[in-house]
């Protein structure tokens, strides 16, 4: 099997390559055409490909001409649309880094193109594979929580510093709301098997100031059955913070029980003379995601998290930005 990585713009690419290599028996190549335009300090291009031990193409045309069985799209957010459509046009299966797109219209076009071409389009939501999430899902399905009343979710990190495009809205589509709402929105959609009907959002640029996008955001959701949910998506962690295991959290309040998950809570902690030591040792979520994608490529049919997972979360983020602009709750309807 041949898998190509399109762009190292998102450094998750290196994790996906590592996961692909661990599976073995896969030809892996990449193209990082945008490399030359990036700041000198941002590694990428043929040097990074060599370091990762994979093949390299100078142009994306050469990559498509290689006829990969699947591509992993790790370009800047605003290029996901173009690359998703191209993959479908080439008859190539695709796993796209989140967010699937920076507008609902683009997400819908990508989904439709893959459907028409009969190709797989999946969205990279690795947290869906967290064992703690599976436990939560099972507990909810079994009825351990009774009827769900409310959910509080967080996905808080620092301002991404590995790449400067994250804080350039022309390439990222936005800040913390774009980057951090979708992971937990995907979990909520899967858990509740429904989409919210109303979205309210507030944001500011106070944490980690000095960038052109929102660095703090809070989102409020209402579902048709009355369930309410909140999401804190802020880039509120200062640089140099130790891993405190709280990258993603979900608290689900039910009439019969309350469940909480922290999928990244598996952290070995300690100290040395330089300060805190913190090493995550949780389940290999990227490997589990890549395994699902490879399985989908082999079968020729999508696995979860699919294009719809990317579409519905993109629509939710779009509604959050609409709410910010209108300073009012925004209705959400997903088709």
């Amino acid at each position: 099997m041949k898998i190509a990585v399109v762009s190292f713009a998102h450094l998750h690419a290196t994790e996906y390559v590592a996961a692909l290599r661990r599976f073995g028996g896969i030809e892996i190549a990449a193209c990082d055409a945008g490399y030359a335009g990036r700041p000198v300090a941002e590694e990428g291009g043929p040097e990074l490909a060599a370091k990762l031990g994979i093949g390299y193409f100078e142009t994306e045309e050469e990559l498509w001409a290689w006829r990969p069985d699947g591509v992993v799209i790790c370009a800047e957010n605003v290029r996901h649309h173009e690359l998703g459509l191209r993959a479908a046009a080439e008859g190539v299966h695709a796993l796209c880094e989140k967010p699937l797109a920076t507008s609902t219209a683009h997400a819908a076009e990508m989904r439709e193109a893959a459907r028409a071409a009969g190709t797989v389009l999946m969205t990279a939501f690795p947290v869906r594979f967290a064992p703690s999430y599976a436990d939560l899902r099972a507990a909810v399905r079994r009825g351990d929580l009774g009827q769900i009343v409310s959910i509080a979710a967080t996905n808080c990190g620092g301002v991404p510093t590995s790449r400067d495009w994250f804080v350039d809205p022309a390439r990222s589509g936005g800040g913390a709301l774009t980057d951090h709402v979708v992971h937990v929105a995907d979990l909520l959609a899967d858990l509740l098997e429904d989409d919210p009907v109303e979205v309210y959002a507030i944001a500011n640029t106070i944490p980690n100031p000095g960038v052109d996008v929102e660095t703090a955001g809070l989102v409020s959701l209402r579902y048709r059955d009355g369930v309410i949910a909140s999401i804190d998506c802020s880039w509120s962690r200062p640089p140099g913070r130790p891993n405190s295991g709280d990258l993603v959290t979900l608290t689900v309040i039910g009439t019969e029980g309350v469940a909480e998950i922290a999928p990244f809570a598996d952290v070995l902690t300690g100290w040395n003379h330089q300060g805190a030591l913190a090493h995550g040792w949780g389940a290999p979520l990227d490997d589990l995601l890549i395994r699902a994608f490879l399985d989908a490529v082999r079968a020729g049919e999508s696995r979860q998290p699919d294009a719809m997972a990317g579409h519905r979360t993109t629509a939710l983020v779009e509604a959050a930005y609409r709410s910010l602009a209108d300073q009012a709750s925004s209705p959400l309807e997903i088709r």
Partner: protein
Amino acid sequence: MHATVGLIGAGGIANAHLPAWLDLGYDVAVYSTADDADALIGRHGGGRAVHSLDELFDAADVVDICTPTHTHYELALAALGHALPTVCEKPLTRTLDEAEDLVARFAAAGVPLFPAHVVRYFPEYVELRRAVARGDIGRVAVQRHTRQGRSPRNGWYLDEPLSGGVLLDLMIHDIDIARWVGGEVARVFARTNVVDGSQSTQAFLTHLGGSISVLTATWTTAPIDFRTSFEVAGSDGLLHGDSDERRPFRYQGKAEPEADILPDFSPLTSPYRAELGDFLDSIASGLAPRVTARDGLEAMRIADAVARSAVSGLPIDLELTS
């Protein structure tokens, strides 16, 4: 000759206030319309029961209202009628109109009124406020405050017109703390979901100056422990507290907790002793206590907006007073 506090109500919170008053050297006259004053006095080994409000007001130098929420307004007005400094358990009143009227009347008469927002005297919140004021995290950006527990099984709490529900019982604390830490609130948006005896309210506050807060208050019929937590993130760092973490004592085993056991009272650590002592000091000194009547009123103003937003689905802009 000791001073006397007239304690009205002998339910849950009176059990926290009575030992604090005794430790402060007060004689305590207890009046309750429920038949529970003698039990309260017996349990704490101090205080005496009185049999009418008139008897209580005649004996009292200070009044402490520890009754169900919907009765606060009338009782506080009665205390004001006797020109007595008054502690009023939170929420100040059941409605914003009552709170505005009460605060205006006490101010006009020059009689001290103290809304018992005791969380400002809980050490982890004192430390939070101190750290923020010191500049540990730069400028406040995002606050999350959570307060959850088992649904009360005592009738009036679950009766919305009497209590104001989880909003006025639990969230009012975090409304006060969010404002204490993050400043005045300019806009409020909220949602509430009630499922039988369970309810959650989530409130989204935009503070003057742009910082944002989400408050979550929950009563659930599930048998959970009471828990509070917060995270306050700023321009340069964050602070985190959770009553479920770093507990100095934990026990798992066969022993059953004794029924009706009293928590140990220590004058040095009781936040109730600290708040009542602060009020007494403020009366003696004429300086403002940590929580003023206006703080209690502003908490009610925000809570009222939370309730209205949860019904209308619209954000509500608050007009800033003085």
